[in-house]
């Protein structure tokens, strides 16, 4: 199988997740080449052809599409693999449309000649099989272990024309101020807490455990907790020894940010919620009743 990987550059560096594309290729025992747009000092280390273009900005989708299509033209791969990231989900469908090919998004595994993807907010899975001779794939970050990077690519320069449809005005850095990455205990609130008032129950438990308060995305979007406390792929990545997920269903973007945790305690009324795929202990209970009881039991130990 021939696989064209599409690497990602952000801020002049190849992203760490790009190595996961090679991990995916290794699982398929595929012959690899790569397309990579942007100016970087550190080219990815692998043995194969590396198609490079410079000139268009990071968010000029048409420029990136043109590079990938030029590489497809020369390489004639069986599949083109992106990461399922803000870059991948923006560019991949444009490439799939130009190739008139199937796209399979968010691949987490391989199965019976098809690609395993998540459905229903991560609660379910299914196997998708392209019906076209070539396919475009986006690979879920975290699903395939990064491959060791070694070798030196044969660099092939591509003249891809920049496009003026999207003008880049600049980036906004995330608000920081709360560093959850070193916390040993994190108690996180999810949509299931139900209201800003109920977040206090989460705070009380975190305080009893001597830990920090974290949040899933809907809680931050609702304004119940500050964005600096968001855990997940669009927030912080954390690895505490104890992670307590209160009313968090466990969307894959959240799991990506906390799956390095030592012990995961999930409190949820839905025993099929995807958080159970990473939970060491699931307590099926109403948060409003259980959290105060647990807080009291922990305080009673002192």
């Amino acid at each position, binding site marked *: 199988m021939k696989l064209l990987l599409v690497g990602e550059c952000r801020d002049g560096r190849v992203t760490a997740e790009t190595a996961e594309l090679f991990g995916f290729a290794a699982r398929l025992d595929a012959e690899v080449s790569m397309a990579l747009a942007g100016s970087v000092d550190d080219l990815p280390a692998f043995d194969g052809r590396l198609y490079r273009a410079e000139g268009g900005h990071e968010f000029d989708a048409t420029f990136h599409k043109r590079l990938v299509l030029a590489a497809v033209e020369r390489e004639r791969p069986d599949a083109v693999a992106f990461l399922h990231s803000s870059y991948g989900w923006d560019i991949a469908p444009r490439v799939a449309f130009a190739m008139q090919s199937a796209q399979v998004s968010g691949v987490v595994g391989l199965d019976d000649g098809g690609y395993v993807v998540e459905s229903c907010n991560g609660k379910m*899975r299914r196997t998708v099989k392209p019906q076209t001779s070539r396919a475009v794939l986006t690979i879920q970050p975290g699903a395939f272990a990064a491959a060791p990077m070694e070798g030196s690519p044969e660099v092939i320069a591509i003249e891809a024309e920049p496009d003026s449809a999207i003008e880049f005005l600049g980036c906004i850095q995330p608000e920081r101020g709360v560093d959850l990455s070193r916390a040993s205990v994190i108690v996180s609130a999810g949509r299931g807490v139900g209201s800003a008032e109920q977040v206090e129950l989460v705070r009380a438990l975190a305080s009893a455990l001597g830990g920090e308060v974290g949040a899933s995305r809907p809680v931050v979007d609702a304004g119940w907790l500050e964005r600096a406390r968001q855990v997940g792929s669009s927030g912080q990545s954390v690895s505490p020894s104890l992670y307590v997920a209160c009313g968090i269903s466990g969307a894959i973007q959240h799991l990506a940010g906390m799956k390095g945790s030592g012990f995961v305690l999930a409190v949820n009324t839905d025993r099929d919620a995807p958080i159970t795929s990473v939970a060491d202990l699931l307590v*099926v209970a109403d948060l409003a009743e259980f959290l105060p009881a647990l807080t009291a039991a922990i305080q009673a130990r002192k």
Partner: protein
Amino acid sequence: MNILVSIKQVPDMEGRFVPNASGSWFDQTGLAWRMNEYDTFAVEEAVRLKESLGGGARVTVLSIGPARVVETIRKALSMGCDDGVHIDDPEAPERDPWQIASMIAGFAAGRGFDLVFAGMQSEDRGFAQVGVLIAERLGLACATGITAFEWRDGAMTVERELEGGRRCRLRLKAPALLTCQLGLNTPRYPTLPNIMKSKRAALTVLSPDSVGLESPKASSENFRPHEPNAAGVILEGDVGALAAQVVAILESRAAILGKGGAR
């Protein structure tokens, strides 16, 4: 200003999903249905834009699916959309993104929409393809996963969410298609008069073939639950007893909660 919003009806994700007879997708009986959350942001943003422009702007809302999606179209009308379009297609829940995009683009082609708003992805299939595929078919500029939108003189400034909490600011001109991410806005609750009015609104009903339905590009099989953590323990019952059990388990892992008090 002519605006299109494309929305999908999905089951409540708290529901229990059972494979259908062929295992290609879930059995649709017994589920509660509502508007895909990402699409609620698309509807709200379109309506806000229309309101900010005063008169002269119209918002058309479109959904594909069986008869039950009419309820979701009416929800969008009650939030402030002007015209409802129902592509009556009982097979829609099983169709791949290519097919769905073929119908929406087929409807939109030649109707002169200045802006198209869509959700970034659906909560059930989560492929994040339909919006971009529509834009490619129609030749529209497209930004995905927007968390901010500002319109000024025929052009828009948007923010796109990137990894790690970073965002980028982009400017593009109409005609354009935007896919909406969580956090873009807070969708309104419709007022009672608007709900009543939306119930009486006449919808345009179209067949899949009349808007150019194409063949699928991919098949779906073996729909199944995710594998739970094999090592995981599930506890339920009286909360007082549960709390004591949980403390005992945490204490048994010395690294988590040592004897003699929490850190």
